[in-house]
């Protein structure tokens, strides 16, 4: 769209916009610093974000002859006779492990297992609050992928599912693949699947909104890390033509003749396979070359608003779709992308329309697989979650500023959970087969219970109220 290419007379406007953007960035850094100080203060005050709470009445110590020995031996014998009963007679069905080696935590890099613990606690809180899932943070001190796989395999008997978290790419791919293959419970890596599924959900609606069919769509993925490698796989599962898909990394378009492809075969066979499979027509060169005539740009790369230039967007097909998902700063500011011709823009942030956020996916996916006591979580299930999420946004009316439900629309999540559970039944991997309405009702109850629980604990002063900022008190919570 030549008419959208910025011309020199607009240079002043561009400079002003950049100054504005810089000021906004400085303000956001200030805010982040303040939030950080407050988070440390609260972490010190509460000393942890989750605890175990009994879920049975205890009238006196006598009850322990049922909850514990001697009565409990009969429960153990029942499970010994049939290990599947562990999903019915214990909390296993609703308990997952959040496992990390701390090798790629947030934007902090390899900070080690202890430093990863507060992040995993936060994730566990999200799992409980949004999904009603009992999640146990388990940062482990291991380095090799084999050691992670072995450790998780040994932990599995206690859990109904495993959530891998903040494990570096590319080792995360092999670890997920191996564990999904070996364990009789769902294994999920949120940095791959959560982000990819949320992206696919947004994309489904963006395609509908711009009258595109996925088969005919030409898509460029910018960044070839955990999220986009998984997004590429899900796109192909959705019916995207591999020839019309191109990945772009720091070295340009990923293609089979690139000189680093042999190294990829050894170090990152997942990316290697995509190098062989994608990019029909043999495009080479940089992002600009890849984007020529492309309908969709899905960026999960560098948090720098100049990563994608307006000229890049202008090279795309008419009315293109641009997802700039880097956090905390998108690869291009949404207004810049729209000015350059983008019809639909999404980011990872809540302060712009169309937030693509893995929290839209993972609590509901786990609610669904746990309620069905599922044995695994194949890509069809992930796509079922994405489709259901997309459908709810569509039901409320799609627009360029309404592609996905927001995080506040929590009433949507039980539907996503039920769709996931239904998909496990259809796939024959559900241990507990219920009707759609039963799954929906169960999910609603369990997802709603956590908020009530947290409120009840605060109301009864069992959870200390939030202290005022900069409070001098060092008092520990009860």
């Amino acid at each position, binding site marked *: 769209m030549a008419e959208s290419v910025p011309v020199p007379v607009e240079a002043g406007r561009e400079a002003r916009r950049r100054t504005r953007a810089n000021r906004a960035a400085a303000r956001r850094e200030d805010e982040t610093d303040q939030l950080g100080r407050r988070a440390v203060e609260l972490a010190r005050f509460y000393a942890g974000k989750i605890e175990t709470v009994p879920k049975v009445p205890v009238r006196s110590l006598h009850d322990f002859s049922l909850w514990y020995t001697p009565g409990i031996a009969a429960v153990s014998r029942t499970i010994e006779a049939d290990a599947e009963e562990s999903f019915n007679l214990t909390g296993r069905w609703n308990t997952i492990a959040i496992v990390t080696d701390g090798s790629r935590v947030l934007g902090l890099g390899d900070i080690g297992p202890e430093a990863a613990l507060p992040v995993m606690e936060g994730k566990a809180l999200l799992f409980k609050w949004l999904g009603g899932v009992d999640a146990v943070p388990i940062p482990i001190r291991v380095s090799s992928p084999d050691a992670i796989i072995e450790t998780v395999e040994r932990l599995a008997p206690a859990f109904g599912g495993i959530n891998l978290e903040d494990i570096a790419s590319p080792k995360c791919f092999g670890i997920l693949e191996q564990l999904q293959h070996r364990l009789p419970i769902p294994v999920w890596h949120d940095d791959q699947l959560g982000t990819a599924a949320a992206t696919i959900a947004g994309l489904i609606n963006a395609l509908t909104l711009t009258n595109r069919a996925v088969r005919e769509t030409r898509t460029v993925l910018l960044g070839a890390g955990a999220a986009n490698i998984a997004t590429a796989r899900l796109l*192909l599962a959705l019916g995207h033509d*591999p*020839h019309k898909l191109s990945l772009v990394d720091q070295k340009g378009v990923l293609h*089979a*003749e690139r*000189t680093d*492809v*042999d*190294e990829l*075969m*050894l*170090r990152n*066979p997942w990316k*290697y*396979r995509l*190098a*062989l*499979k994608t990019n*029909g027509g043999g495009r080479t060169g940089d992002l600009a070359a890849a984007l020529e005539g492309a309908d969709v740009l899905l960026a999960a790369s560098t948090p720098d608003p100049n990563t994608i230039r307006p000229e890049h967007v202008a090279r795309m097909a008419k009315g293109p779709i641009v997802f700039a998902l880097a956090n905390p700063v998108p690869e291009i500011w949404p207004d810049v992308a729209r000015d350059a011709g983008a019809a639909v823009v999404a980011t990872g942030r809540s302060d712009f329309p169309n937030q693509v956020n893995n929290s839209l996916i993972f609590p509901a996916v786990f609610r669904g697989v746990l309620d069905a006591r599922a044995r695994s979580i194949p890509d069809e299930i992930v796509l079922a979650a994405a489709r259901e999420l997309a459908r709810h946004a569509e039901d409320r009316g799609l627009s360029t500023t309404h592609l996905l439900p927001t995080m506040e629309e929590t009433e949507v999540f039980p539907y996503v959970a039920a769709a996931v559970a239904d998909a496990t039944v259809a796939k024959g991997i559900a241990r507990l087969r219920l009707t759609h309405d039963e799954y929906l009702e169960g999910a609603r109850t369990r997802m709603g219970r956590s908020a009530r629980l947290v409120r009840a604990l605060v109301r009864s002063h069992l959870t200390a109220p939030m202290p005022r900022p900069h409070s001098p008190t060092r008092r520990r919570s009860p």
Partner: protein
Amino acid sequence: MTAAGEPTPPTTPGPTDSTSIPIHLRPARAADVSALVPLLLRLKRLNEEFDPLLRVRDDAESQAREILKATINDPKAVLLAAEGVGPDKDKVVGFVNAVLRERAFYAPPVEGVIVDIYLLPLYRRHGVGEYILKEVSAALKAKGAGVVIAEFPAQNEIAVRFYAKRGFRPITARHARLL
């Protein structure tokens, strides 16, 4: 060493998917040298990934050119060029290089040693490695070899698996340290 093996079997067909072998092998000619040099260098750079003692020298390109020229005329060597098929006919997309060595003390008395196999990534899979191995073994046998040996970096597990699947086993080992 080989780059024809794969870390894991393909799950979905690639763009060159076809039930037939997408290459054909023929003896290399002097005119192929320019096309073979970058392929040989790609292989040596891949080997570099396995051990610092396999660091590629700055003059590797001229070395490659000289060695390939000499090999083409050497009666005690087998150098086969892999050509594409269909639209890629006449394009050299890989090669295999093997040499005959006398075995002074052991029987059989002549061994054929595969020293280099390289195939551009797009032409791998589809049983191509198998086909190359069969062809080069036949050529070595025709020149008198009674045993076929594959040489590759010890850490190349893809090659280890590829050859192990086809009945190869380790017979001698080469261990190194820097002086």
